[in-house]
């Protein structure tokens, strides 16, 4: 297409940003639908079904007769073809009914409700701390690339990133709980109370998560920043005699921030996986215990609900980050 200023001019277009928000949100919803299907099919394809597991567990001698199995399947509704079960599941989902556990018979909402809340508190706290730390340190060390400050931050970030969560968590417990005795080594939450009521139990789990994720996030933000620092427009700004502080705040930061946030979305969604390990180490009453149990006992409704919740969180984070990037980058915002 020939370059024509009339075509690329932004003013006069109808709220391209609003249109974009709507488009991205619709895309998010479409992706959620697709994910629900994947989750359902994926969990449904687990080898063996709940009927197997229940019978194996109740009959002391291995397994039940084929007749018993068939009867139980019919009772649990497992004999219906899967598309029909999928639609039933979606229908329930839309009404807030996630079905009931195949093992305990309690409603899934009851089983995971408060635990999902606890996990979200942990993940939320970690995220709220991660973003400023990663963006701040990433920008800071990217701008002073190669200087001692950057060497220290990058070195620590690499080391932290290399450490598995459980090692980081164990080290933190050793230092703060066992040696210094400052913080509890396990994070017990009495049922019916919120972890926020006793913030001290959150400190070590959040620190463990941060220690691992911050490393990778800082390095990503730093990489993007040092790319911007080397860009022509930054070099030219310096050649115009623009003071270094202005160069950093008006030229480097605005251009590094958008892409940095997009990269961060990647690490935050990765937190969904890391949290399982950390919850186990600290005996934190989050979803991970339920999830592991449900997978072992083929408690499909519980697995499905948890998997779906995790997928939706991930999608939400990506969509939010996408929209933030568009808001921060003029070229995208104006639809150019």
């Amino acid at each position, binding site marked *: *297409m*020939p*370059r*024509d*200023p*009339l*075509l*690329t*001019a*932004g*003013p006069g*277009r109808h709220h391209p940003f609003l249109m974009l928000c709507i488009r991205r949100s619709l895309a998010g919803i479409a992706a959620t639908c697709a994910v629900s299907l994947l989750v359902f099919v994926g969990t449904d394809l687990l080898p063996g079904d709940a009927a197997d597991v229940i019978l194996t567990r109740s009959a002391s001698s291995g397994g039940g007769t084929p007749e018993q199995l068939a009867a139980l399947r019919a009772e649990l509704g497992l004999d219906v073809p899967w598309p029909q079960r999928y639609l039933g599941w979606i229908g329930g989902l839309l009404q807030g009914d996630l079905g009931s556990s195949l093992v305990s018979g309690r409603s899934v909402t009851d089983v995971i409700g408060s635990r999902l809340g606890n996990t979200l508190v942990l993940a939320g706290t970690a995220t709220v701390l991660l973003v400023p730390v990663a963006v701040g340190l990433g920008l800071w060390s990217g701008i002073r690339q190669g200087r001692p400050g950057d060497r220290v931050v990058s070195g620590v970030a690499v080391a932290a990133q290399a450490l598995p969560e459980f090692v980081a968590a164990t080290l933190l417990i050793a230092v703060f709980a066992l040696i210094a005795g400052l913080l509890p080594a396990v994070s017990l939450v009495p049922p019916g109370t919120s972890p926020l009521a006793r913030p001290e139990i959150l400190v070590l789990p959040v620190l463990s998560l941060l220690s691992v994720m911050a490393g990778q996030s800082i390095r990503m933000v730093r990489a993007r920043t040092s790319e911007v620092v080397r*860009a*022509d*427009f930054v070099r*030219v*700004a*310096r*050649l*115009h*005699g*623009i*003071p270094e502080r*202005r160069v950093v705040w*008006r*030229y480097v930061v*605005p*251009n590094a921030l958008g892409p940095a946030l997009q990269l961060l979305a990647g690490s935050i969604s990765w937190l969904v996986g890391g949290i399982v390990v950390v919850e186990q180490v600290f005996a934190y009453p989050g979803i991970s215990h339920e999830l592991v149990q449900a997978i072992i006992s083929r408690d499909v409704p519980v697995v499905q609900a948890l998997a779906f919740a995790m997928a939706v969180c991930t999608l939400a984070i990506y969509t939010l980050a996408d929209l933030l990037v568009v808001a*921060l*980058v*003029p*070229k995208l915002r*104006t639809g*150019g």
Partner: protein
Amino acid sequence: MTGAIAEVVGVRVEAPGGALLDHVDLTVLPGEVLGVVGESGSGKTTLALALLGETPPGTRATAGRVTVAGTPMLHVTPAERRQHLGRIVAYVPQDPVLALNPAMRVGRQVAEVARAHHDRRDETIDTRAMRALRRAELPGDPSFLRRWPHQISGGQQQRVTLAQAVVNEPRLLVLDEPTTGLDVITQADLLAQLRRLRDEAGCGILYVTHDIAAVAGIADRLAVLYAGRVVEEGPTSTLLSQPRHPYTAALIDAVPDPRRARGSAGLPGVVPPVGARPSGCSFAPRCGLVERLCLDAPPPPAHVGTQHRVACLNSERTGSVVVSAPTVRRVSTPSPRTSPSPANTLLVVEDLHAVHRTRRRQVVAAAGISFSLDRDECVALLGASGSGKSTIARCIVGLHRPTAGTVRLGGTILGRSVRHRRRDQRRRIQLVPQNPADTLDPSRTVGEQVARPARILRRRSARQAVAEAVELLDQVRLPTAVAARRPGELSGGERQRVALARALAARPEVLVCDEITSALDVSVQAVVLDLLADLRTELGLAMVFISHDLGVVASVADRVAVLADGRVCETGPTREVLESPRTPVARQLVHAAPRLPYRDVADATSVS
């Protein structure tokens, strides 16, 4: 020299492998434009940056001094240097797209530079910015100031960088290739404006470029840079009419001229890279006058006239001998042709209509284009940027669906899109696209891509296709090693030649060339034009040639079709159209084209 705005004395800029600049002496007087010309890799950018006290990363200035308005620029603290940058010496970068902050509005970008050298509360900042925008001939209305860099045209982007440079009224402006990538009319505007700016502001200008024709019309003096040294320096008229260094002479001769439809001379070889430069005269490997003495030590610059210096041991023989030197080959002149002959017609484009649709608008690119092309003829399409040239090219090869009209090849009507054309029809018409980066596959090696057309369109065996590919790469002067690389590892000019080799691999009868020379510097450009001329005489290749460079058009095309508003507004033999254009559009294009003003004198004195 007294009264100089800028002085460069004995400057040497060194990288670990060798010197990028050595023994460079230059001065710029107030109100003067000094043009610095040289091929790619000769050290132009390094010199431009040295005037701002800057050296490329990993390099150091190890000798000499640079002063601007009496202020030393090298070996000063960064804080001191910052005070001078933008205030006494300002820089206009090569590529405005990359040089503007994508996250800052246009008006702000200019004001920001003013603010760098004034107190934050100074009310004159805005008036200064407005004056700079006016000087750069940009609209000063708020709606323009509030645009983002991606919302203005390429020419306007370049003007914004100019406004940034003049906002603090510097004593010296340093321009690095400011017109590459602009079409002729925008380029002519910019040059005219630079002249006005110089007169109005009285600043000195250092103008660095590989395009001698562009700088000839504006520079008072020229300096020719080769392998990091100034090999010749003098008043523009003297230098162009009586070049005394063989390199200058060859460089001038390699520039195609719109009024001289006799083809240009090739300038074989490239500038020796840093670290591999000969100990004697660095031009020796390419020089037709080389003798033993030249290889001992770099020849010292000597005065050969008022203000005319040259660094060559044989400078008195230059001008008479170099043109016929064995290494310089003259391109065969296209056979003059007056009108198309119906019996020989190969390609006919009839009443072609084409549009571009975007979400909201429809842009007419062609509104009834008709022209024909004979066997072994070359027709050039001329037109300002946005006049639809590329769209027409794409319609001919079937990559863009016309809304109406036909393309006929050897009497048969071709399908509107490539998918509706037979394999053989596809083979017979090939396109060399404007931006080869878009059409080369980044994941395949160059060799594979050049071999493909022969395998697919001509059913050659893989081995045979590869052998042909190697030969083609050699013909476009690419080293064989290039075959193993991927497009990302090539420079822009090299990619352009790969695209040409790939098109030729199909053995086409019609070659559609869309701005294939704009990324090439004169020496490679001359080689490519030379190759095309050979192919036309040997294989009878016919060409549709799109270029905004009238010099190139004059040296390859038999006929010219001038486009405006999606129509052909004038056609005729190249010479006729370029010498006496009849329509206003054609006149504007021809007059906007940069040319060597002293060429006629040069022709008169050299043997040809």
